[in-house]
Each structure stands twice: as C-alpha cells, then as structure tokens.
C-alpha cells in the first residue's frame, strides 16, 4: 500500500509540510512520516510551490509528484475541451527528472496549456518533454476511466509511458465498479496496478475540519456544503 499525501500548499488537504504540528493546527506530514517510520513519502501537489519546503523537511524520503489535468489538445480552449479532461499524477524519482522533466511539464501546462487559470497538459506535450525518472500514475478518482464512465466524458490516454493504475477503497458507492473497470483495463493493456490510499487528513475525526476547510474555499457551509459525492471519512491515515 502506497500512501499518497496531498498537502494544504495546493489547497487540497489540511496537512502541512512543517517540521512539526503546531498547537491544534494542521497535522504535519513530516511528523506523520516519522511516527509511521516511512522510508518514502509520496507527495502529490497541484503545483510545485511546496517543493523547497517539502525537500527541506523530508530530504531523501521525498518522492515528489504533481497532479495534472490532461486534455485532448492544450490548444483547444473551447468549453467542449472540458469533456476531454482527466487527471494524472507525474512523479519525479530523481533530481534531474524533477528539474528537466517535471518542471518543464508544469511550465508548459501553466503557459501554453493555461485554460482560464487552470494549467493543463496533453499527451503530445508529455511525450515531447519526457525524461528518464518520471513515472505516470493514474489516480483512482477523476481518471479518464472514471470520467468516461461516470460523467460521460470522452477522455483518451496514451499508454506509451507505461502508466501505473491506482486502486483505492474509500467506501464510496462507485468504488467497486470503478475498481473492476480499472483492473479490466490494466489487464487488457498490460499495465501495472498499485494499491494506493489518498491522504487528506490525519484521523477520521478530522473529516469535520477538512470539510469546513472545503466549505470556506467553496463559499458554502456545513449544512449545504455543495460538495458532490463528498461522502467518505476514510481519506485519513491513522
């Protein structure tokens, strides 16, 4: 099982990258990794702004990844292109993969791929900027399979970089159905699968704090959070 940590730096979670948890504030990923004696910490961000802090506090334990939105063609700026969007995670496993690969990909996404402030990539750009040491993970939620099946999108994927497919279980209604589809697709296309667990907060009871945080971002409230499908408290680690 691989834990995929999302940090508050990308407004994804209520977990910080500080050395220690301060008072009753955000739980520190660094501290959690120490408590659980982790050799590696897989950190997934939406942009690379947290890298200096993460590297400073996690050092060689850090495996840094960025979750990208991929569409069919980054030059297509029409609303219709949204229906080709899905998520992938690209991890850099070496320093040069981070500098020469991941950073170039993020720069392309944030400049050429920008769509209303949203960085996007396509597989053409990924293939052009690919370097050794990068790995593509297909997240369990919001992947091309997930979006095609549950949202009726028309997303495509390139298998040339041998992506690894994540399998998760968060006791959500479509988990079993999606798992079946992921396993079928991976088997048919000779791709690896990996049991992963997305971590957004430390303990189950932290769900209320996490939801409050999402409501603040969303300008909603706990009585009417407007968070579609937000129905699991299992994105915890302990």
């Amino acid at each position, binding site marked *: 099982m691989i834990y995929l940590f999302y940090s508050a730096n990308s407004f994804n979670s209520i977990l910080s990258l500080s050395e220690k948890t301060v008072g009753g504030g955000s739980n520190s990923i660094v501290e959690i990794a120490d408590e659980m004696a982790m050799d590696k910490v897989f950190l997934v961000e939406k942009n690379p702004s947290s890298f200096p802090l993460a590297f400073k506090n996690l050092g060689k334990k850090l495996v840094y990844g960025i979750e990208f939105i991929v569409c069919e063609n980054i030059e297509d700026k029409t609303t219709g292109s949204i229906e080709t969007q899905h998520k992938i995670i690209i991890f850099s496993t070496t320093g040069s993969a981070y500098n020469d690969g991941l950073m170039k990909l993020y720069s392309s996404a944030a400049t050429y791929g920008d769509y209303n402030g949203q960085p996007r990539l396509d597989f053409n750009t990924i293939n052009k900027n690919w370097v050794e040491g990068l790995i593509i993970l297909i997240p369990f939620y919001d992947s091309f399979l997930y979006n095609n*099946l*549950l949202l009726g999108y028309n997303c495509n994927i390139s298998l040339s970089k041998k992506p690894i497919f994540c399998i998760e279980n968060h006791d959500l*209604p479509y988990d079993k159905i999606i798992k079946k589809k992921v396993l079928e697709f991976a088997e048919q296309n000779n791709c690896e699968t990996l049991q992963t667990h997305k971590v957004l907060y430390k303990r189950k009871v932290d769900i*209320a704090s996490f939801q409050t945080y999402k409501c603040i971002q969303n300008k909603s409230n706990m*009585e*009417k959070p407007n968070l579609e499908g937000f*129905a*699991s408290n299992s994105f915890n680690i302990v």
Partner: protein
Amino acid sequence: MYKKDTGQNLLRYKFKDFKFVVFDYETENLNLCCLNKPWELGYIVVENGKITKEVNDRILWKDLNISDDAKRITKFDIEEYKNTAKDPKEVLNNFERYLLDKDFIVVHYNGLNFDMYIHQLFRKKLGMLSDYSFLYRSIDVLSLCRAYRLQYQPPETREDFFFWQTQLALYYSHPKLRSIRKKQMNGSTTLSSMAKELDVAVSGDAWHSGLYDVKVTWEVLKSLFWKLEINSSHIK
C-alpha cells in the same frame, strides 16, 4: 448503436411483472458526509403494478438538529415529530427488508446524488457498515427526467443504462459546464415541475413530505415509461 426495442420488453407494458420500492429521506441538512441524519423516511412498495404498502416513518433521535432551511422546506413540527417518531433500528430494519432484497427495483428522485448517501449515514449512525448493494438495481427518476428533457433514449445494455443514469445524475458536476448545460436542459427538473409538465396527479400537495414525494416519483416514473424506451433488460 442504439437499437429500438421491438416492444414486448418495454417496461410500459411489463412493469407489473416487477417489484419496486420507491423511497425518499427528509434530513437535518444537505451534508452527505457527517453532521447529518435522516429524520423521516417515506416509501411505497409496488407489486403487480399496485401500491401494496405505504410507509411514512419518523425516526427518533435524541440529538436531532434540523437546520432552519430544512425545517422551513419540510414544514417540520416538533410536537408531531415527538409524538410519532419511532425507534431508528426498527425503521431501518423494516425498510431494508425491501431495499436489500434483490427482487426489488429501487426507485428514488435524485437518490444517486443524495438519498443513497443518506442511507449510509443512517446505517453508520446505528453502528453498521455502509451497504451500496442496491445501487446497481436503482432507477433515479431525476436522471430519467433529464434524459426526457434532453431527448435522450437509454442505451442498450444494463451496465450502460446504469452509467447513463449516473452521467445524468452528475450532469451539472463541472462548474464551468453548468450554465451551458442548464440552458440545454431548458427549465427546472425538480419533482414538482416535472410532475406538472408530465401532468401527473397525486391527491394533496404535501411537497417534501417523504410519502407524498415518493407517490409523485412513482407516478412520474410510470409516465416516463411511455416517454422513454426503458425495457426489462435495463433493470434485470
């Protein structure tokens, strides 16, 4: 490629061969994850095309905490609640005799976005694990109403029909597509507006009472059997 049904399997002719349970929860608020629980459950059981059971159970909680919005919308009356509410375990067990019975088709209005999650909150509140086993034999009438508005016909297979309903349930999920899609929908698809549009009549007008809403949902579904080519292989 969609193939037109030859007729003999269409639910408009065959629905009497199936058993249905139509349900609706009234809740403290609209949270799907925590700090919420159902306080009323309405359901009807339909066998041989006829309603054989009508239930409108209030669920007794000592820590009931209904939001002001929910009180207003459902015309919640605390005295009536106190006098009629039943033991939660009893309410759940009675309902799950139908919900978890594989012979029943489970019908709801917006259940794929709301009621199925609320059912799990109910179970968790009673210390039980979640159980989504009824999901695959569900009909979300809201999805069918959206299909009717958009002039979509259902796909051929049962699996495709299931995902098709989900896609219609999540039709507005992307914020940037919402306004375009709302225009395409051409009007509201709330239960009351669809009932009016489809000329469905149920005596009384107790909108947002569990039992009244499920009766209307059932009538809307029956009307949609004639508008959409839903056949028995879509649900069995």
